[in-house]
Every structure is written in C-alpha cells, then in structure tokens.
C-alpha cells in the first residue's frame, strides 16, 4: 500500500471499478454510473484513498453532476482522485458515502442544502447552512431570488431592469448634510488657494 499510485497499477488493484483517466486541469478522475458509486468508492477506500475532501455538485439543465475528491495519505506519491457521477434532475438521489468516509457527512448535507441532491443512507439528511424551513435550493440555476445581484462584465449591453434601477438611483436628489457641504466647500477653497 505504500507504493506509488499510477494508472497502470490501478487496473490491477481495482479491476471492477472502471478506468481512472488523467483529466486536464484536474488530474486523476474516475467517472462512474450512479448505481456503481458505492462500489467504486469502497474500491478507492481499499486502494488507500482514506481522506475525503469534498463533494461538489454542478447543476446542468437535465442533470446534476457530482464530483468527489478523495486523497490517499498512504500512497507514497500522495495522490488524489476525483470520483465523478451524474444524477438526473427528476430523481436527484445517490448513495451516501458516509458509511465509507465519515467525513462525507457535512459535505453531503451541504450539497443537499444547496443543490437538493438526496443522499440515500445518510444518517441525518437535513439542511446545514440554510434555515430548516427554507424553500428551494440556492445553487440550482433556476433558483429565483430578488436579492441576487448580477454584476455586469462591462462588455455586454446592460439588462433593461438594471438600467431602470441605476437611473432611479441617479435621479434621486442627493442629500448632503450641511456640515459636509461646508467641508466640501473648504476643500475646494483650499484647492483654489494652492
């Protein structure tokens, strides 16, 4: 187990779990079907990947892609693997990995809270950041909230609603307290003096 981990070895050690590939920008990645997730995860655990780091959900129009990162402290070259799976939008459930890595507990709750992915077999599947009675999953692309402020990138045309708002701010009469006006006056005087 203390040996280095590389792509040739993994086929010998984990023949059933699918093929780990080297992805650009990420490193080692293993993509599996939703039903194979638990099997793949336990295979990774047996292969020495003992530190669970996070699970990230990405909301696409018809599915939510989950990316787990697990790290091996036992391998000599200290390597991490991204475990990827996909769940359909109409049935966002997936097996929980808490039984394999207890550290997955809060991370899975976070993903449930913000993306609405239900992890089957999790001991306490409840919201972790948002209040318990919150409606909706904020990180979904169709989540609507008036308080979300979309900043423009300076290149595109400004959205119509934004323009109205901005104008409203500009046309509002600017109230400067008298004391401040004096200060401003003084500052200007000082400028002209010098």
């Amino acid at each position, binding site marked *: 187990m203390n040996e280095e981990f590389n792509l040739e070895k993994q086929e010998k050690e984990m023949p059933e779990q699918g093929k780990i590939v080297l*992805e*650009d*920008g*990420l*490193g080692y990645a293993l993509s599996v079907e939703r039903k194979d997730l638990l099997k793949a995860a336990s295979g990774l655990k047996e292969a020495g990947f*003992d*530190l*669970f*780091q*996070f699970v*990230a959900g*990405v*909301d696409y129009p018809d599915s939510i892609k989950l*990316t787990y*990162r697990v*790290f091996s*402290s036992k391998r000599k070259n*200290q390597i*991490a693997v*991204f475990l990827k799976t996909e769940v359909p939008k109409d049935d966002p459930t997936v097996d929980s990995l808490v039984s394999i*890595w*207890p*550290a997955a*507990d*809060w*991370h899975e709750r*976070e993903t449930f809270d*913000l993306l609405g992915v239900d992890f089957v077999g999790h001991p306490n599947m409840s*919201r*972790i*950041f*948002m*209040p318990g009675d919150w409606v909706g999953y*904020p*990180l979904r692309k169709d*989540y609507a909230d008036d308080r*979300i*402020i*979309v*900043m423009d*990138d*300076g*290149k595109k045309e400004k959205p119509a609603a934004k323009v109205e708002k901005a104008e409203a701010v500009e046309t509002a009469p600017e109230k400067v307290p008298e004391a401040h006006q004096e200060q401003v006056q003084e500052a200007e005087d000082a400028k002209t003096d010098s």
Partner: protein
Amino acid sequence: MSKLEEIKTSEVSLDGLGVDISSNGDAGESRTDIRSEELAINFGPQHPSAHGVFRAIFHVDGEVVTKIEPKIGYLHRCFEKIAENRTYTQFIPYTDRMDYVSSMLNNWAYVLTVEKLAGIEVPERAEYIRVIVGELQRIASHLVFLTTAGVETGAVTPYMYYFDEREQILNLFEGVCGARLTYNYMRIGGVSADLPDGWLEDTKVFLKRLAKTMDETDKLLLGNYIFKKRMIGMVPFTAEDALKWGLTGPSLRAAGVPYDIRKADPYSVYPRIDFDVCTRFNCDNYDRASIRSDEIRQSMRIIEQAIEQIPDGPVKAEGIPKVFKPAAGEAYGHVEASRGDLGFYIVSDGTTKPYRVKIQGPSFGNLQALPAMAEGSYFGDVILAFGTLDTVFGEVDR
C-alpha cells in the same frame, strides 16, 4: 536542541512525547460512578470562545461533555452563488471574506485555479512575491491562533506579544496593497502591484524581531507548566481518526500525517525552496497548538530563502484583460492555507463568468471532527479542542 531537531529525532519512535494518554485524557471513564442528570447548554453563537458564530448544544454531565451538536450557518452568504454572477476578476475580493484571518492565501488559491483553468503563466517575480506574502500571512494567522489558545487557557498576557508581531505583518501588508485585513492583492496572472522600495529589507528586519519574540513567548506560553498540564494528552485524536473525519492542515499534521500540499502537490516556486513539513504525534490539544509555533519557524525559513532568490521582472502577466473567457472545462487548484487544504473547483462554460465555483474550506472539514474528537472530555478541554482546531467561520459557512 532546537524544536526542529527534536521533531526529527523523535520521528524514529512514533510513541512520541511519552505522554500517557490513558491516565488523564479520558475524563469520562474513571468517573462513571458519579454520573448525574445531564444538562443541555446552549453554546454560542455569542459566546466569547465561539470564534465567530459557532453554535452548539453541549450536553454536560457535571463537568464532562457527553454530546456535542454543532449548528452552523450563521455566517452563510453563499459565495458559491455570488461567484456565478461575477466575472472571474470580480470574485477575488469575495475570497478575502472567507477566511478573513488569512485573506492572502484565499486570494492565492482562487487565482491559482483560474490561472490553471485559463492556462495563464505567472511571471517568476510574482510567484516569489506570492510566496513571501503567503507565508507572512500564514505566520499572522498562526499568531492569531496562539493568542486565542492562550486566552482560552486564561493566559491573557501573551496575547499582546503575539498581536504586536502580527501588527508588524499588517504594516508590511499595508505597504504592498494598502489594506490591513482584506487585501485583494493577488490578480489573475500575478499580483496587483510590485513591492515598494525597501520592503524586502523591512521584512528581513521583521523576521529577526519575530524570531526573538517567538523564543520568548514559547517560554511564556507553550513552555508554561500550567499550560502544558492543561493541554498535553487532552482530547487526543489518532491519525486514523483524523483522516477518517477529514482533518487537514496543521491539525492533521499534529496527528503525524505529513500531508502538506506544498510538498504533496507542489505549486508556485515551493519546489525550489528548502523547508520541512512539521508533524507531531498525538494530535492532542498541545500538539495542535505547538505545531503552529513550529510552522511559524518554517515559514520564516521559506521567506528568508524567497527573499534571497527573488528575481527582477514584471509582476503581472501581460495581455490579460479584466474580462476574459476561458475555454469550457474544469479545473481544481488548492494551496496549503493556514488552516489546511483550501481548494477551488471551478467549472467554466466558456463565458465571462464561472459556471460553478466550489470552495473547499478546510475549517468546514476540520470542524465536523469536533464531536467525534471531544465527546467525553471536560468542558474546559472541549473549548480548547474547538479552539485548537482553529476554525474561522467565514470559511465554514462561506
């Protein structure tokens, strides 16, 4: 024998510091005969030791805490959603507000990932500047940790000595970027401005001063008899448990796992710099506290070498517009932040704004180990265990 040599020599036997954990660490076992009715105490979010807005329900039996139920989310701002509505450059200031005790390293982790995503090369001088300010930030953050560890044991005087040193670091940071807490110094492709004249000399002077203070305060706090008696052997955690519950950073290294991203997954110019990964053995309160002191010394070594090696040249890659479109794809980048493995996982869809930004905050991972770690300990030790995990709630809740 210096601290470093001590660590090296004692690496041979993993039995470690010769601390008998069983005798005094496990408070629950020896006192089962005098159990009484449990009391549920609400801890936080406005408790002096809550380190921000931590809330937990402590079930205490006399002085022994039998169950901890953490409740988080009081500082949740959903930065991940905000990031989706900002351009890549516009999101940098938000990273300052995550782990507000070590903003530089947050900046760094984010811009590192974006550079990876967009395939941007960073000039060498900028890399060295990043290493120097990053390590200074780590020192500042660990100094804050040591102050709080001291205050939680009732030693309020070392507080000022550590904060005096941190103040010098903040002055240095004010010199490079004008801000003292939320720096917004890193840019995609470099840093916002070159170092001012004489800044490196000032840093050298500061390092000399810091070395002296660290020796002094080590005697005052970490070497204090009462402090040791309070901390050594209390609330220990095995390496296996630490990995199981997802600890990273100094807390994991205190358990003896030499996982440091600067060595495990080298970034920037760290491969050219000679330093050691500090480890300890028991991951008890004292190990988690004293490893920070060791790391400050390693950071000082790194800064000294970086100052020697820093070349002249530009500090920002040329031709990077404020708004740009990286190719569709995904990237993961992480740095060794002062609390552990701080990672960003960014998915791009080819537009000017990221499609998804996942922030992997080390405090979040570390905090969830608290119940497993501290249940069955004395109330006072649980507070210390929480303190020595060094969580910052801007990062837990994000």
